[in-house]
């Protein structure tokens, strides 16, 4: 399979790889996917007192497109409010990365990941 330039760039130089302490109250963690399906994404956001995402990190087990989708997402959510982050659509990620049809599910997974992370944060801070 041939990969697009942007996928290759994120794959070779993934942004914001890392891990936050899940137990801290200002951290939201979303872990989605399943090993059996060949992709698992963990996306974490650090939220400040104004409800703005100050920092984001990820780790992904999956194909190059899954890695690129989550890497790009961490760039996009930084500086956004929780609602703004939740409004990011998988189609925008897919378009930016020029994902082929068989890889659209990777961007869907990334959208699921940010939604799960926001929900996790809100549940903790409810």
């Amino acid at each position, binding site marked *: *399979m041939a*990969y697009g330039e942007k996928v290759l760039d994120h*794959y070779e130089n*993934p942004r914001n*790889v890392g*891990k936050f302490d899940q137990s801290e109250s200002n951290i939201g963690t979303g*872990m*989605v*996917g*399943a*090993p*059996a*399906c*060949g*992709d*698992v*994404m*963990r996306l974490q956001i650090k939220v400040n007192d104004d409800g703005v995402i100050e920092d984001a990190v990820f*780790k*992904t*087990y*999956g*194909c*190059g497109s*899954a*890695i690129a989708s989550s890497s790009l997402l961490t760039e996009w959510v930084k500086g956004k409010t929780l609602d703004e982050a939740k409004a990011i659509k998988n189609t925008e990620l897919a378009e930016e990365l020029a994902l082929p049809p*068989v890889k659209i*599910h990777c961007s869907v*997974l990334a959208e*699921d990941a940010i939604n799960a992370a926001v929900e996790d944060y809100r549940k903790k801070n409810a």
Partner: protein
Amino acid sequence: MNDKTNRPIYLDYSATTPIDERVVAEMIKYMGPEATFGNPASRSHSYGWTAEAATEDARQHVADLVGADPREIVFTSGATESDNLAIKGSAHFNQKRGKHIITCKTEHKAVLDSCRQLEREGYEVTYLDPEKNGLVDLEKLKAAMRDDTTLVSIMHVNNEIGVIQDIEAIGNACRERKIIFHVDAAQSAGKVPIDLANLPVDLMSFSAHKIYGPKGMGALYVQRKPRIRLEAQMHGGGHERGMRSGTLATHQIVGMGEAFRIAKQEMAMENERLINLRNQLWDGLKDMEEVYINGDFEQRVAGNLNISFNYVEGESLLMALKDLAISSGSACTSASLEPSYVLRALGRNDELAHSSIRFSMGRYTTSTDIETTIAHVRSAVEKLRDLSPLWDMFKDGIDIDSIEWAAH
């Protein structure tokens, strides 16, 4: 990268091999207006006679490698066609005796899909589970045999994991029950000694392009004594004793003959070299954490090593290893997102199936290639594990199977 060609290092010899220069030299003699271009079936002039002499020489070479009589060799377009002809041809011919067939879940798609077609036609097929090491358990095979079983089809060497089945023992069990035994030997001819004069095998499929011959060329061994009969799948001019019509592809056949002739001469030496390369590769990787060999290590063809790098996904690993030409799972199925059905049949869990890489070495692989490969693989696996949440969890001592994953 290979320094000389500036192309990735080729470690996918199980998918296909380049045509040996010596084979190319023979084939060219049968192409072009000055060449021996006649139709081997033309009886009325020397163009035909010389072409026929060439195909019959080649038939002898093919037969010689596997201990067969040249009259037992039917030329086809490849192992796919040979498998189809063997399975559908014998099932159809013997349908009055019974409509039950036995095969194994790790067979090549050419065998499995021929069986699926027969199921659509009203046959019953038993798909045996292999043992964890990829080998068929003889007792389980015997237990599956029924009075209406007419055919057992078990491959010699598996294309993904390289394990060698004990076809002699399986064949003897078939003989006891008077069941026809077909063996797909696409991956074993020229790599494992085969002596059909003494093996209890009735039908055997061969492919030229797996042993340095041309693509689109193969053969089916059809035993003469006792005679095995097949219903033709390709009808026409009655070539190949009526079993496979179509003008003989002289240059292709000559190429296959030369490839088989060379294989007979060089197999022993080549295997020794390949075992050394395989050991070099495994020695360079085995101290890494969480790496697993798929398939039996001892009962394995010389050039194959199939390894799972746990917690790393195969497709991304291939992407990181773009300087190596390797495959994850079978080359035929890597276009889909399914993990390898062969590894699943061994009972490997999905993560391990998703993280498998097949390295297959061959005639032109060097020790320097392997050295480079080891370095690339180690750094790619390390990089991807740093990116893998599953690796984090493993390192934190979390049991991944204890988590309820949402399948998607």
